[in-house]
């Protein structure tokens, strides 16, 4: 096997249950996906971010064993975007790279896949992360239009004249991929309508949602000015324009402004507004994951250890409760309670989702009925959740969010001296994912 060592970095081995460490991480600023295509494609974002992260490592990019990237909506010319990014970042021809998709948790899925590869001894050093350029979500042709086109190709001149008459039908209009991606095909509802549903079921008022959103903005603004969002590396457009901060971090947001917004999903009677839900965005994040062997080989300092990762599925209409479904059993199987978790990152797809989770968690009966376990009738305290703001303020480039909350949690845990931390997201389509981290002594 010695001849393989030179090419693939490490020997094939049958080690199992290797410890997995997070060594370093970086993300781009999250840019606003506002109507028109942004300056960067998803592959551009992943490349710019990863190249800067890799430049500061003591190992060379081609010493990575794998590159794993989550992406929920790559462009048509970005199939297996992980491989494109890997080559463009200078990892060379011989680093295998693969792409994973699990909607909002695509980034977290990439980290879980990397952990498993390392735990099983199949890899020692993996670059994993998530990326989405939602402003560039492709225009999709409707099924009617696709049929029309194939009819046009095979038609004669007379038939074509007839076909032309059908062209202006609204049924032929293209749909944006973004619209489709946010529409939950399992529930047949827009994600925002799912949030409305939860808000009603848990009697969460508009004021509560807006208050959560306002606090997210205030915490993010404070974190930005105190330099606590230092996981961000700059982006430079081909026009030489510099992007250093998340587009959504806005110190000007106030309660009155949030209250004045109209609901955007159930327009007449709803409570979910663009102000109390995460804005789609463009962004990328990468983490370097390593085994104990790799730490030693490259003299790397670990930030945290990935202890566990859990996934759960539930009624698609109750998607927002995914974090509880994933986290509660994960804590139980690790012998931990809510009180043992010093810091939480709960992805703020909608303020209503997070608030519904907290209510469910504090309801001992709900836990017993829905999850079949005893949660102690206690939810994580607001003061320990998203202490530097969440996706409502920072933006939610779907697949990048999983990478963001894990890397920020790791940094915050070290800063705050928290031993354990949990990062968790709800996943469109009725799922939840959670990852448990532990500070390395």
């Amino acid at each position, binding site marked *: 096997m010695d001849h393989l060592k030179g090419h693939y970095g490490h020997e094939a081995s049958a080690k199992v249950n290797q410890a997995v460490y997070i060594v370093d991480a970086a993300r781009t600023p999250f840019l606003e996906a506002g109507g028109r295509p942004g300056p960067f494609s998803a592959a*551009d974002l992943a*490349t710019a971010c990863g*190249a*800067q992260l890799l*430049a*500061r490592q*003591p190992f*060379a990019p081609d010493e990575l064993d794998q590159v794993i990237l989550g992406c929920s909506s790559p462009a048509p010319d970005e199939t297996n975007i992980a491989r494109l990014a890997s080559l*463009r*970042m*200078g990892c060379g021809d011989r680093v295998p790279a693969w792409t994973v998709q699990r909607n909002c948790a695509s980034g977290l899925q990439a980290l879980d896949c990397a952990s498993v590869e390392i735990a099983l001894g199949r890899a020692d050093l993996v670059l994993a992360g998530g990326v989405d350029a939602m402003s560039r979500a492709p225009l999709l042709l409707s099924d009617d239009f696709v049929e029309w086109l194939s009819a046009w190709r095979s038609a004669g001149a007379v038939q074509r004249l007839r076909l032309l008459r059908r062209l202006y039908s609204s049924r032929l209009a293209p749909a944006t991929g973004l619209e489709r991606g946010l529409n939950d095909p399992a529930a047949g509802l827009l994600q925002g309508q799912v949030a409305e549903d939860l808000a009603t079921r848990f009697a969460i008022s508009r004021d509560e949602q807006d208050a959560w959103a306002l606090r997210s903005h205030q915490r993010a603004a404070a974190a930005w000015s105190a330099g606590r969002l230092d996981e961000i*590396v*700059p982006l*430079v*457009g*081909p*026009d*030489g*324009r*510099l992007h*250093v901060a998340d587009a959504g971090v806005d110190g000007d947001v106030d309660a009155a402004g949030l209250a004045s917004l109209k609901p955007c999903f159930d327009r007449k009677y709803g409570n979910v507004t663009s102000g109390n839900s995460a804005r789609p965005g463009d962004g990328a994040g990468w983490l370097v994951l390593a085994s104990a062997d790799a730490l030693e080989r490259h003299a790397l300092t670990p930030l945290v250890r990935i202890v566990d990762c859990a996934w759960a599925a539930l009624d698609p209409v109750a998607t927002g409760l995914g974090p509880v479904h994933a986290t509660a059993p994960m804590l139980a199987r690790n012998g931990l309670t809510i009180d043992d978790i010093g810091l939480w990152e709960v992805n703020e797809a909608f303020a209503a989702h997070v608030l519904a989770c907290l209510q469910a968690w504090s309801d001992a009966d709900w836990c017993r009925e829905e999850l079949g376990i005893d949660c102690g009738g206690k939810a994580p305290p607001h003061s320990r959740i998203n202490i530097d703001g969440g996706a409502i303020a920072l933006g939610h480039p779907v697949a990048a969010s999983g990478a963001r909350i894990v890397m920020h949690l790791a940094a915050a845990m070290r800063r705050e001296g928290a031993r354990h931390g949990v990062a968790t997201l709800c996943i469109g389509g009725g799922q939840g994912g959670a990852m448990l981290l532990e500070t390395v002594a």
Partner: protein
Amino acid sequence: MNHYGTHLRIERDWEGVAWLVLDRAGAQANWLSATMLDELGEVVGMLEADPPSGLIIASAQAAGFSPGADPDEIDAAVTPQAARALVARGWAVFGRIARLPLPTLALIRGHCLGGGLELALACDYRVVVEDPATRLGLPQVRVGLVPAWGGMRRLPALVGPSLALELMLSGRELTARGAWKAGLADVCVPPRVMEAAARAVVMSGRHSRHLPWREVLKATLLRRFVAARARRALAPQLRADRYPAPFALLELWVRHGGDTLAEPDESPASMAALLRSDATRELRRVSALHERLRRGGRVAHGVGHVHVVGAGVVGGELAILCVANGFRVTLQDLRQEAIAAVIGHAAQRASELHPDDVPARRELLDRLVPDGAGHGVRRADLIIEAAVTVDVAAKRALLAGLESRARPDALLASHTACLALADVAAGMHAPARLVGLHLPVVQTATPLVEVAAEGPDAADAIARASGFVAALGKLPLAVAGTPGFLINAVLAPYLLEALRCIDEGVPAAAVDHAMREAGMAVGPIETVDRLGLDVLQLLACGLGLDSLPTALSEAVAAGRLGLRSGRGLYEWRDGVPLRDAGAAPDGVAERLFARLGAAARDALSRGIVRDADLVDAGLIAGAGYPPYTGGPMRHAARHEDRT
């Protein structure tokens, strides 16, 4: 019919197509020598006697098809008879190839220049191969000669006189795609199908494309008019008494349609006269000297990742040069806006370099990684310090810090226009690791980079640095690490003298005008502004040139530091100085040239470069010294001969 000569071989494939493969023995390229042309003549004789179904001419040399006529044989053609024989042997055999009663094709990969392209033009078809090394052109005027083997006749017939004259008068070389777009090549193909394409095209029976009627008129009735217009369009510094070749080319085309043998030897436009002229001799010498510099850069440098410290004008330009030539760069600067500006410029350069290749543009930009905190130092193969400061202490501290974090085998370089290398290296543990680099700023896209090192242990560092500079597509010139290295040490006294002219009341624009008239690419006052007045002051200090002109000290005191500060001796707008033309009093050019010549001799006597040839080569490539003179040392020597 298989035949193996010394320099070529010919064989027929299964379809009866003859493949004639050029492979000059004992050389790295197919320089077309007399013996090679003789062998070609023999083969053409065989083909005339027993014609195959088609002929494909290709090369077995990795470097390319052919770089042109053998330079040693051009050197030897000193008499009019020898000049005539040199022209006749190519003209005759290429003419016979053109008249062969069978389809002929040149398969071109790598260089195809001068006589090499004239051979390809004698064929019916040309297939060019997409390869970054593929280059087609007739650059003879650059060394004071003209395409005499039929190129001057056949190129206008193929692509039309407008483009043909532009290509021949400028010596511009085309890429494979460029040649195809210009109509010079019939098809442009990737290497994997080049042989199949050549076989298909040569047997296709297709007609070569017809010129538009306007171009046909220009080649015939309007020829005189077209030539007159081309003459007017020549660059102003090309004067017939200094650079006769372009003017001879136009006359030969108008009078004989490119048959140089028809021109009597006494005529100044004849090949005999061109080969005899001072300008041609000097241009050919300078070209050989630049080739000598290029050879000095054929060294393995082992550099893949370059860390550049400082995103100012020079640091940015170096970073862009690196990524444009395939290196990965981490660019360090605390000012993120400065890094962003460099990336913006790199994007512009990428569009210029790869106008229709989006992936290539993207890869170029991917290689340029912003690195505000300077993490890249730890892994880089080469670290270039190009901080925007002339403060020795600051540079010293910076370099000591870089050295402590760099890999032990990494090469360290400091870019400086005015400091002594030993001063900059003083804080380092191993000063012999440090090389000085200097990318002259006199002209944009200067082809030369000075490489300086101190001490006997520096040989390895200077060799690697020279290899790296050559990989950037620049000419490396090894110099001693004294203040200003060669270029600025020679320029400084000359620039100060020019400033003294201003002190004496001559307007700045008039001084520049006089020197440009005298052949300098850039006037001295503009050079001062581009260099920076503070840099010149420091340079003067370092060189012990104490009495500074008032124009300099006043401007520096007023904070007018040149292009960098938007104002120096000129106002600058968008990188261009605002000025009106004006006439200088007689003798200004002679006085300034004398000062520059003295400084050049002084630099040589101080051993900054090894010999006088390198002074000439350096000042022509690095300071825009007029090439027809042969450089400052040669210029002065000839001047003395005459007086």
